[in-house]
């Protein structure tokens, strides 16, 4: 068990973390690359930068948006994200691991807050999952991954909370810790290839949709040629 735990903490963590980072870099580069190519081809290069920046900020920090539509859902969703982002990055135990492994460290979350945020994240993830199950519209849209993700995301939070707070036999602790680490690493690997990619792609959305309406100039002829429609009536 201990060797397994060491393997999961060491080489496997490095590998999965690398996959995540490289995967995210890849999609960001593809996104930006595509946008630059589209900008070059656009017939009109005057973009509403101000609007795009404003919309981006409004969605990254959706304070104003909360109570306009579906307030409960919005609030739950935001609070869920707050814990989800803050706890893994600023948890004392995680930062200590970074310090011992890579020699870097940063501000850490007080223990009480870490517990509170962990519990709220679990609670809101559960609520969002139930919301998806019981809202007709959302259920209709949902794919398999939409149900799997909240469960998968809850897993490291639940196991992490138990490991930090519940007294238990060492062997059981190690088992829980292993689940905690492996589920976290599974999440790392999946992020760049699933919908969770929105964690890095979201800031680009508003610029991309502003640009997407700027069509390239004079494509009528080219499309007609490709489709053998030259001279065809309307």
């Amino acid at each position, binding site marked *: 068990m201990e060797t397994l735990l060491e393997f999961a903490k060491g080489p496997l963590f490095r590998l999965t973390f690398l996959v995540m980072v490289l995967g995210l870099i890849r*999609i960001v580069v*593809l*996104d930006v690359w*595509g*946008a630059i*190519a*589209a900008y070059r*081809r*656009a*017939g*009109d*290069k*005057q973009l*509403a930068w101000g*609007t795009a920046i404003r*919309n*981006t900020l409004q*969605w990254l920090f*959706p304070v104003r*948006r909360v109570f306009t*539509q*579906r307030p409960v*859902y*919005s609030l739950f*969703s935001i609070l869920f994200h707050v814990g989800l982002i803050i706890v893994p990055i600023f948890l004392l135990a995680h930062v200590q691991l970074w310090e011992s492994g890579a020699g870097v460290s940063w501000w850490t979350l007080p223990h009480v807050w870490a517990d509170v945020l962990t519990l709220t994240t679990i609670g809101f993830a559960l609520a969002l999952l139930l919301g998806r199950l019981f809202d*007709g*519209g*959302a259920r*209709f*849209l*949902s*794919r398999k991954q*939409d149900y799997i993700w909240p469960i998968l995301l809850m897993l490291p939070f639940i196991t992490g909370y138990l490991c930090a707070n519940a007294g238990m036999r060492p062997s059981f602790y190690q088992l829980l810790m292993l689940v905690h680490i492996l589920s976290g690493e599974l999440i790392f690997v999946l992020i760049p290839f699933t*919908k969770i*990619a*929105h964690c890095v*792609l*979201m800031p*680009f*959305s*508003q610029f*991309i*949709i502003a*640009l*997407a*309406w*700027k*069509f*390239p*100039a*004079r*494509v*009528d002829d*080219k*499309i*007609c040629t*490709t*489709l053998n429609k030259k001279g065809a*009536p*309307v």
Partner: protein
Amino acid sequence: MRTRIITAEQREKAFASTKKPQVIEKQRLDVRYHVEDYEVEDRPRRFLEAFAAILKHTNYRFALEHFIRISTKCSRCAVQCPVYQATGDAHDIPCYRSELLLSVYRRHFTIAGSLRGRLLGTGHLTDEKIEEMADSFWNCTACRRCTMECPSGIDHALITHLGRFILSEIGIAPRALVVSTREQLEGATANTSAIPLPALKDTLEFLEEDMKEETGIDIDFPLDVEGVEYLFTPAVSDFLMEAETLMGIAAVFKATGGSWTISTKYYDAINYGLFYSDRMLERIIRKLYAESERLNTPNILIGECGHASRSAKYYVPVHCGGENAKPVLNIMEYTLKMLENGKLKLKPDTITDRVTYHDPCNIARQGWIVEQPRKIIRAFCSDFVEMTPRGTENICCGGGGGTVSIDEIRPYRTAVGGKAKADQIRATGAKYLIAPCANCKKQLRELVEDQKIDCEVVGLHDLIYKAIDYKGSYAGLSATQEKG
């Protein structure tokens, strides 16, 4: 086939009034849009060919790539979609509509998707899917509210726009739009309503006489004057249906001493290309621009029409030289400018009845024309009330995206698409509903009639016409004869 909100009775009634029921009867969709009958087996191949050609030559691909990665299926867009709110049918949720096309893109145009599809032998494009797309994309009124509400920033309106474009390339597009566009681009009259030039001249002369009689002033419609400041093109249907709007516009020009002209060769700003085909959009824009070159006017001015204004404003630069292209203005921008620089005087409190204003999606959504008309209205109306929501977040009249031209689906438009708007109008208790858009006006008139709302739908310049103080305005005109 899923059941729709339109009852069989409504549908029968709707089809009884169509011109060519025998053609429509042959087709299988509940809401029937096909231009012509099709070879069923061949459609998926042709769809994919058209999709590929469009991806090759346009800018859609990078946006689709972004959308397939980022879509979280949160269903938040559902709360903003007036169609879904009215039907309650999950097939009408914008995100579902988008997924129809995104799934085709994922399966046939991405490596991972096509590998997965081939391994499992699933997900390829079928005739049924095309049919569902044709059905779904034309249920949308292209109001773009869903785009504003998507936290991930997926532009469902862009996806629907693209979907319609691809479908049109394989012959699936509303007959009304295609026939009109054909007449505009290739017909003898060069306009969507097929109004011949002599009829236009007659109409304008008649209106000039009317205005002389009503105001005592010689207000004219200058035709084909070269080198003037503005080439003015309204939605051509205004010449037949919205004469009072045009009279108001002519009166504003007269009072402010504006130099403007209407072309006799091309007098239609309608651009149905925006609704169904980028290729047609481009052709119509280039035709309009060529006309402004011929008459050597430095500005293009579009009448009270939402989609015509948007397509000219945003696609003249795209197809006619970027930032060097001639500026495009909406008539309300001109009128407000004149009001603000004092060249136009309106008599305050001319209209004392309650007035409300409907924002046409195509000019309001991006925040282009929101405050301008309100400033003008406040200058001469004493009881102006707003609808909620308004401005950039307004609710569509229910006839957007070209659907208003399809008379066959009037019951759908007034019972489903326009339901939210009807509730809004009723809540204001207004006597006049100002809608500066030919498209919205037609829809809203049908809406207030079918929903039995006591309210008159007018253009902004219809009312301005009654309020102009000719003597106080720049040109300083006074009546040369007693009012008739």
